[in-house]
């Protein structure tokens, strides 16, 4: 089941990449005609794709976490990049009184704007960006300790009962504000780091529970609609010269 999901992500990431390369070939031919008139130096189109390294590392350190995030971006025009992140997570955690497991997938679509002025031929970036995030997931309550002020009787942990259950078909939507860097390591390999401020727009909550964790959005607090995240990416770029 888990493997199927991983393959689904890899395939779904590759599909748009091949599709865009084909599209650019068409654009390439059109641009040649335009260039003879404008005599303007065009930067090469680049497609970058790769994965978030932090999630496999965290999965190694924490046996209650599994995560995979595939990332990709493409230069659309001047310093604007279209960007995508696809991920899958399974996380079991103890949140104060409740132990629960969140399983789900997410898709983030948006753009990055590069503020870094590259030398000719370089393609590093210090960027700001935005994403629309979508997550589809399920929440399972494993056990909990009812809130009691008096502890005369030994405190019981509820492991069976009507609230110990899994609720699926849950979803969440949010907006991300991103700041990050991308640096070329060797050849076409890039390392990237980004931090993200997330603003939750809406989420469907499980019955008699809450979305304490949302895949992609991360920890959701009671007090406000803001969350945070980061990723540490390794990407491979394919330059498309025009």
């Amino acid at each position, binding site marked *: 089941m888990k493997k199927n999901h991983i393959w689904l992500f890899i395939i779904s990431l590759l599909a748009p990449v091949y599709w865009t390369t084909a599209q650019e070939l068409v654009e390439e031919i059109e641009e040649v005609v335009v260039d003879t008139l404008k005599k303007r130096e065009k930067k090469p189109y680049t497609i970058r794709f790769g994965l978030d390294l932090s999630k496999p590392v965290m999965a190694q350190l924490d046996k209650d976490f599994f995560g995979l995030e595939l990332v990709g971006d493409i230069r659309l025009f001047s310093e604007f990049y279209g960007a995508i992140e696809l991920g899958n997570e399974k996380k079991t955690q103890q949140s104060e009184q409740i132990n629960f497991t969140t399983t789900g997938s997410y898709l983030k679509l948006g753009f990055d704007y590069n503020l870094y002025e590259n030398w000719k031929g370089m393609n590093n970036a210090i960027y700001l960006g935005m994403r629309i995030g979508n997550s589809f997931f399920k929440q399972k309550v494993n056990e909990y300790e009812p*809130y*009691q002020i008096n502890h005369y009787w030994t405190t*019981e942990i509820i492991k069976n009962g009507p609230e110990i259950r899994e609720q699926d078909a849950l979803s969440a939507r949010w907006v991300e*504000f991103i700041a990050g860097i991308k640096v070329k390591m060797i050849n076409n390999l890039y390392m990237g780091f980004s*931090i993200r401020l997330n603003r939750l727009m809406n989420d469907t909550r499980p019955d*008699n529970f809450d979305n304490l964790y949302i895949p992609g959005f991360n920890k959701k607090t*009671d007090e406000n609609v803001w969350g945070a995240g980061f990723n540490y990416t390794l990407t491979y770029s394919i330059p498309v010269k025009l």
Partner: protein
Amino acid sequence: MTPRSLFFLILLTLFSCEKDDICLEGTPATPRMIVLFKDYENPQNKKGVTKLLIRGLGLADSLTTFSGDSIAIPLRNNYEFTQYEFTLSTSSPTLSDSLQINHRQFDTYINRACGYKSTFIFENPFYYELTQSEGWIKNIEKISDTLSDEKKSHLAIYH
């Protein structure tokens, strides 16, 4: 705003503290059972007890030695009953009654820090008298079926 300062601003928000990890005092918790002590001869009137020793059966320590006309007694979570021994230590010989309160529960989600709280419902019958001999308790009535908060009384003991 320069990109660098924005970067650090976002970094700051990442490591800021969160309030909602502490369950705030005053949040309604799992309610205790409020017991009223009433006069058997005049059921309308309250009749206080003096030095009533309350102890959960199977526990070494007593809950309290109580004087007054109403008390909050914790029920046992995750169990279908709670057993208590009520010993009137002022009488001689000391009179003792053991009761089993039968209940079921459902749990309601409050928030992240507090988790769930339980609400108890009295089963039918709602109690068993565990002691055979004559005690000090003459009659027991339930005042409400559901124990959802500690604002009103749930059980009346006539003596």
